[in-house]
């Protein structure tokens, strides 16, 4: 069973009931995630973040998740009781959020939060939890982890905060990591550093990574496989190395609208949206 995908999703829908009827944020997505780096790209509102949250069952009412299949290691996530889900969430599957400023608890020290995160999932002593927290901080390239453990979130920089978040998510040793725009709140030079850390950890530990981003170029450089989302559906999927051969006008539009230092143009191309993209059936991204 080693080749079985970590995550197997078929016909996933995320719906919200609103005053004006039901709004479909994700419309019939199918994909699998193995021990690989899968990039999910799209604009705001394309449903990429909702896909990430649905996989962790983090969508609260009035939002609804429906799927023909949503299996993690053969276990049906949708049917699980909330108690079991809490064990999986953070334990086997973790999520790195966009902005460390809003995701770390401002009134707890870094150390307290890290230790709590680990002890929520494993019956380890406080002393052992502390030792592992130190080791993980070291893994995410934080100098002087002893000192950092005693700091409050407002005392650390954005890049450091994001690395602390990563450390926290990795402590219980998850198999699947969902990273939702993990670097968009960071400076360019820090971005690369944080990506390198995620990359190294994913490789070393053999995890599956779902990397959600609006930056197609970044994803192309960083992931193995890409799925491009538009209006809640997958419009195209390809190997990251073959992005240059992408066909779909939406993908091409995204690629061409980015100003590029090396290839200056007088005017940037503006995406002309075709209503047909919205109605075209979702492409399957099953490996």
């Amino acid at each position, binding site marked *: 069973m080693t080749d079985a995908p970590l995550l197997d999703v078929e016909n996933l829908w995320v719906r919200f009931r609103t005053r004006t009827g039901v709004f479909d944020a994700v419309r019939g997505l199918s994909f699998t995630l193995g021990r690989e780096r899968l990039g999910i790209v799209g604009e705001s509102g394309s449903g990429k973040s909702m896909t990430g949250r649905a996989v962790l069952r983090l969508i609260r009412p009035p939002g609804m998740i429906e799927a023909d299949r949503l299996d993690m290691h053969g276990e049906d996530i949708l049917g699980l009781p909330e108690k079991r889900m809490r064990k999986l969430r953070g334990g086997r599957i973790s999520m790195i959020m966009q902005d460390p400023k809003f995701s770390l608890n401002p009134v707890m020290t870094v150390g307290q939060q890290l230790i709590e995160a680990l002890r929520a999932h494993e019956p380890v002593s406080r002393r052992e939890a502390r030792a592992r927290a130190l080791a993980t901080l070291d893994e995410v390239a934080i100098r002087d982890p002893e000192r950092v453990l005693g700091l409050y979130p407002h005392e650390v920089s954005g890049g450091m905060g994001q690395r602390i978040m990563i450390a926290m998510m990795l402590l219980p040793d998850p198999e699947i990591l969902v990273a939702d725009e993990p670097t968009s709140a960071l400076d360019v030079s820090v971005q690369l550093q944080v990506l390198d850390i995620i990359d190294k950890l994913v490789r070393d530990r053999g995890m599956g990574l779902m990397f959600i981003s609006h930056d197609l170029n970044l994803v192309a450089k960083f992931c193995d496989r890409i799925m491009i989302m538009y209006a809640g559906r997958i419009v195209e999927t390809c190997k990251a190395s073959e992005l240059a051969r992408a066909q779909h006008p939406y993908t091409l539009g995204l690629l061409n609208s*980015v100003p590029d230092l090396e*290839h200056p143009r007088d005017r940037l191309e503006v995406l002309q949206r075709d209503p047909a993209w919205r109605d075209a059936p979702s492409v399957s991204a099953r490996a």
Partner: protein
Amino acid sequence: MSALSIEHLNVWFGTGAERTDAVRDVSLDVGLGESFGLVGESGSGKSTILRAIAGLVPTWSGRMTVAGETLGKKRSKAFYRKVQMVFQDPYGSLHPRQTVDRVLSEAMQLHGVRDIDARMGRLLDDVGLGAGFRFRFPHQLSGGQRQRVAIARALASEPQVLLLDEPTSALDVSVQAEILNLLADLRRDHGLTYVMVSHDLGIVGHLCDRIAVMQDGQLVEVLGVEAMRRLEAQSPYTQHLLESSIHAIR
């Protein structure tokens, strides 16, 4: 004649032991009609320079001349007619309970624009929105449309200099392209001078003629966009920045 000239600018926050020097001894010159970029990491002082020019930071020393007017601690009304600023976050910079009409007419009243009605229509056309958007509230607009309103507000007083603080960083790449094209058109049509802050060298390289690289509150170097494209930076820091932002795949 230069549109904007800064000599030995220092900006600090706090006093005594708490004092942080955000900008240290920066001098630069922006020509009339030029588009000038300021780049650097967070905390390098690039936005602080913009805020000092706009009069949003009281603690500064040095000499600043904008459109022939030497700036003191207080700015004249004429100064604000000539210099306007567009902020980073269109979600935060528009009043949520005021319509586009109210936002723009208030700006025009403050600057004593006559014939507000006719000018309103022209402003909305200029930023590519059209009269249909006049009575909408911010929550009825997308991020890109909001930023267009913010740009229209800045244009209301018919300024000569626009200060742009990361005008597209809160937007999707596809919408960013529209706003960048709009800014390029407006500069050409109205003969504007831009000073733009961004951390994205691709954007700065697209819109600007010259860029200044900042680090730790100091100016590392000023280079032309051609030199930047050829990756011919003098300082190792600029070289490092250039190399980290070359991630294009084509």
